[in-house]
């Protein structure tokens, strides 16, 4: 069964990972812009990174029959320096025009600061101005619940953001209901130690349904697994969930959300 990996940081992964994902049925990957594990020294670092996302990764994925799409932004960790973040925001519009770009993301909060919130709001402005989809990163561990609420307030209080065009990622048991109840899409990230395991993701699906929900590996340079989505499909299957439910979660739902961008067109 084909699947879509809606959140994978392939710049941090090997070519072997592309091959393994293709063998597991992956037909498309969407790659949000994120933190590199260190703060970039200049805007030029971001310019090069955005070129990697829009030029090099699509070519690397294509060798394995995978279509590569991406999101452009300055991430919340580096957003805590507003002066620098604004310099990066200035170069984003030219990349939003590129053919594999789906929207602005992953924007959000990390340590729930006023500086991060300011840059989040300015990038929401950017997305609205350019009619782009939004992919949201919610904070880690103890910061997640507070941060998710602040982010939703920032999005909903404006009145010009359609929650159906926003995916709020990394939800867990304590945040998923609020995200879905407010009309947003929700992403569950499958990590071995933090965020959701396959089993807990299956539990959340059983308790909250399949509407506006997807699963992703968010594979990056940390402890993560690029095959987390196909492994979660096995978890759902062993519990007795139907092929139709599994397809809804791992192909149809990402396809439906991402297709709101005119750039998301799958071959065949």
């Amino acid at each position, binding site marked *: 069964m084909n699947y879509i990996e809606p959140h994978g940081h392939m710049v941090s992964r090997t070519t072997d990972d592309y091959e393994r994902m293709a063998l597991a049925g992956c037909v498309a990957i969407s790659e949000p812009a994120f*933190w590199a594990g260190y703060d970039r020294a200049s805007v030029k670092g971001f310019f090069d990174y955005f070129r990697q996302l829009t030029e090099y990764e699509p070519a690397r994925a294509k060798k394995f029959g995978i279509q590569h799409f991406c999101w452009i932004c300055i991430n919340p960790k580096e957003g805590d320096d507003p002066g620098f973040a604004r310099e990066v925001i200035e170069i984003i519009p030219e990349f939003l025009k590129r053919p594999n770009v789906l929207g602005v993301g992953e924007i959000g909060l990390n340590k729930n600061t006023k500086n991060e919130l300011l840059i989040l709001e300015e990038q929401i402005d950017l997305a609205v101005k350019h009619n782009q989809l939004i992919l949201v990163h919610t904070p880690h561990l103890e910061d997640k619940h507070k941060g998710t609420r602040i982010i939703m307030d920032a999005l909903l209080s404006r009145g010009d953001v359609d929650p159906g065009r926003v995916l709020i990622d990394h939800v867990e*048991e304590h945040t998923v209901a609020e995200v879905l109840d407010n009309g947003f899409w929700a992403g569950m990230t499958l990590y071995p130690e933090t965020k959701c395991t396959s089993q807990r993701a299956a539990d959340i699906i059983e308790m909250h*349904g399949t509407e506006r929900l997807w699963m992703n590996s968010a594979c990056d340079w940390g402890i993560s697994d690029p095959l987390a989505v196909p492994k979660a499909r096995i978890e759902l299957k062993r519990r007795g969930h139907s092929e139709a439910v599994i397809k809804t979660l791992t192909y149809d739902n990402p396809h439906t959300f991402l297709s709101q961008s005119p750039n998301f067109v799958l071959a065949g």
Partner: protein
Amino acid sequence: MKYETSCPLSHREIVDTYYLEHRAKLIDIAAFFDRLERAADGTPDKDDFRVTALRDALNLLGDGEGERAKRVLDLLSDPTTEIPQSAAGTKGALGAAPEGSK
């Protein structure tokens, strides 16, 4: 689509499928607490706030109420509403709300 009956597996199937895995995780937690008592610098007068949070979470598991995963996550969350100006270079999270935040 909503699942009115939740998990499709029977009670027995859930136990058969997951018992050994969670038995192992429970023993890991027990060994973690034993390891703390064998620390090279001895046992501190006061637990690290993360250890305290873990002890509180373990107590929660035995209270007979539902939504355990959600309540554990809530217990381990920052309950404050203040928004600081900057993280001052801090990037990571610790997994429990620091002491004094509750």
